Each structure stands twice: as C-alpha cells, then as structure tokens.
C-alpha cells in the first residue's frame, strides 16, 4: 500500500503562512478577526498534536480501560459544547445531562454496532477503528443535538403566549409544544441530510479524502465513507430525537405547566 508523503514541520509552516496572509488581509478591514484567526490556528495545531500523541499511546497500549476513559472525556467535551452553544440553557446540570445522555445512547450504541457487526475487527474495540469512528459520530451528533435543543428552547421562550394559550384551551403539553418539537428535530437533522445529498457531488468528505491521501484504493475509501454517512445519519438522528424529546419534557412539570424558569440565558 502506498503511504502518504510524510509532511515535515516546514511543509506545515508553508500552509500556516496562508493563514498568516489571511490575517494580514483582514487587518485593514477591521473585522476584528485577526487575533481570533491566529488563536484558532494555534489551538488547532496544539490540540491536534496532543491528540496525535494520545492516539499513538492509546493504539500501543490497547487497554480497554484507557479507551473507555478517553471516550468518556470525548463525551464530556461534546456535552459541554452542546450546552455552550445554547442561547437559552437548562439550569443546573440538566443541559449537560440531557446532551450527554442522548449522545451516549446514540453515538455509543451506533459506534458499538458498527464495530461489532459491520467491521468486526478483533478485539472489537480496536482503538484504531473505535476512536476515529466515535469521534466522527460524536462530532456530528453534537451538532444535531445542539441545533435541535437551541431551536427548542428558543422557540419555547418566544412562543410562550401560544403554548400557554393552547394549554389553557385544554391541550396536553406534548400537543402544545408539538410543532416546536417537530421543527427542532427537523432543524437538527438538516445538516446530515444536506451532507448526504451533497456528498461526492459537491464535497469529498474529509475521511474519504484522508484515506485516499493515505493510499487506500478509492473504491474502498468510498465504501468506508458510505458506512460513515449512514452511521452519522443514524447517530445524529436518534440523538436529536432523544435530546429534543427529553428537553421538551423538561420544559413542563408534572402539572403540564410551561416552566421557562428552568431556562437561563447564556452568559456569552
């Protein structure tokens, strides 16, 4: 198998000079972006280098316990990100708990399904497969969930008068928030629907590109990409369904009262 051409730090600094150039160009436009651009570039470099080290060590140790720990850290980071992206968040640990619960149920189950049933490498948790798979699933599920939850809480906040009027007319809480819930689920699923529709025609997905660069035959890379697309669709779809459902339950109490006091504004 052809290996990818190894990249030296010099090659990377050539690419980095493009980012620097962009930063210089934005300076006179007063976009206020140059420092954020540079910070983001530095973060990418440091975070990816660190993760490279972690992966190298993880692939060599192959202990399932370390694997479990790393995946829990990934889950916690994703759940924290879900909360951070909400304009109106659930107070207390609820936002975090619902986000991580939904991701645990969807991403992890889908990953384990793919590892055991579809790929069936031995051992099934082989980190070389499980960590990248889980990472891609978590990343996409996190997107779906945070979009869906953001839509849910914001629409409930703005639609308070309508929801309470419907409650006052004797509708069940699930009914009164039914349309909002549907819209939220729909908007959470749109990114993966778009990605599936545009895949190959407009964009060459990152994983597939990476595999081809790494020397895999294109048709094999394509098969992996199709697998990933389906897994992501299932993972983010189920994750969004579940998170929005949990969130819409939490918006009401046992007496079907709309409880917007359970939300707070983001501090950002």
């Amino acid at each position, binding site marked *: 198998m052809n290996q990818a051409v190894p990249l030296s730090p010099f090659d990377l600094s050539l690419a980095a000079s493009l980012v620097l150039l962009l930063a210089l160009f934005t300076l006179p436009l007063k976009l206020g972006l140059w420092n954020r651009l540079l910070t983001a570039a530095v973060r990418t470099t440091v975070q990816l280098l660190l993760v490279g080290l972690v992966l190298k060590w993880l692939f060599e140790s192959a202990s399932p316990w370390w694997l479990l720990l790393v995946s829990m850290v990934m889950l916690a980071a994703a759940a924290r990100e879900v909360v951070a992206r909400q304009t109106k968040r659930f107070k207390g640990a609820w936002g975090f708990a619902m986000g991580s619960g939904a991701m645990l149920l969807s991403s992890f189950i889908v990953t384990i399904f793919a590892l055991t049933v579809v790929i069936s490498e031995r051992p099934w948790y082989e980190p070389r497969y499980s960590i990248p798979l889980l990472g891609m699933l978590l990343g996409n599920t996190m997107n779906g969930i945070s979009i869906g939850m953001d839509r849910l809480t914001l629409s409930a906040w703005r*639609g308070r*008068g*309508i929801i309470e*009027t419907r*409650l*006052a*007319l004797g509708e069940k*809480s699930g009914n009164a928030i039914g349309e909002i819930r549907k819209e939220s689920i729909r908007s959470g699923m749109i990114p993966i629907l778009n990605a599936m529709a545009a895949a190959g025609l407009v964009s060459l997905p990152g994983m597939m590109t990476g595999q081809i660069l790494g020397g895999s035959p294109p048709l094999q890379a394509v098969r992996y990409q199709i697998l990933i697309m389906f897994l992501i669709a299932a993972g983010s779809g189920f994750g969004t369904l579940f998170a929005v459902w949990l969130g819409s339950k939490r918006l009401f109490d046992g007496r079907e*009262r709309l409880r917007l006091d359970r939300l707070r504004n983001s501090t950002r």
Partner: protein
Amino acid sequence: MNSLSARNLTFLDLGPFNIEIAGGECAALTGPSGAGKTLLLRSIADLDSHGGEVLLGETACSSIPAHHWRSMVGFLSAESPWWRETVGEHFKGGNAGLEELGFKPSVMEWTIERLSSGERQRLGLLRLLGGEPRALLLDEPTANLDAENTARVERLVARYREENDAPVLWVCHDLTQAARVAGKTYSLDDGELRSDR
C-alpha cells in the same frame, strides 16, 4: 352543583385567598394593575404553581390531569395569540355564538393577519367557549372593544353562564362594568383580597 371555589390559594408571596363562586354566578375581580389579578386566574387554571386547592363542583384540581382541569375551567388571557393560518383551524369544538358577536360564518376561512385586535379578542372568547368549559376565567375580555362589541360580549357571557350554570370570574378595570356584569366583586389590592356584594 357547579360552583368554583379556591381554598387557601397562594402563589408567589400572595395569599392565602378564598374564593367562592356559585354555579351561574359571575364575580368581578378588580384592583390596580400589578396587584396579581392575572396571576390569580393563572393559578386557578393551574398554569402557575400554587398552594391550596381549587374545586369545580366536587372535583379538585389536583385530583385530575392538568389538561383535563384546564379544559373545564376556561381561562381567557388578556392577549389571545393565534398560531395557525386561518381562524377555523383554531376551532376544535363548536363555533356557536359567531352571529351574537357580529361575525358571519365565513370568518372561519379568514387568515389571522386580517383580524383586528378587537376581532382577535372576540374570536378568542368564541374559541374558548367552543370547548364548552364548565367555568370561565376571563382576563379583561373587552379591553380592546368598542361599546357595541363590549355589550355583545357581556350578553354572550351572561347567556353562556345561565345556560351552563357556569361560575364566571371576570377581571375588569372598569368598575361600572363590574357592577353591570357581576353579582359580586372581589378586589385585590396590596396582597389583600376583599369581597363585597
């Protein structure tokens, strides 16, 4: 017996309040704005958390599912929002009383945008009555209406009350209206609820 009674009702830092409205009786609720009249109605409708108990006839609020309770004690908020395209889509029950409030049956096909605020308010009342609630909690139902339409609403509510033996709690700003529509008046001021006949 279809009376509405609130016993030791508390909400926020207000109360305990006791209210007793017999079936077919209308009580007005007056008081300065901000005194908590709307909150009182919302608590009776169980839209806000509250202490104490509310009964309609023999049925206690806490003994049945909340949506069931709310469909029995029809609460009309001061601004009645509309969420679908046309008027008719909001009417699940009947639409009796249209003519009485000055509408033609074709109003059901109207889109919401073309409704004036007064029309919205009158139709909001009809939407509520369509569900045939056993009691009425009305929060300034004539606030946006001219004299003629105010009289129409007052007549319609009076007829509904008599025909269904329904207790009515009517929040009004206007004391002459209170005297006109209600057999007794509660006034809520500075955390105190007084009842005068």
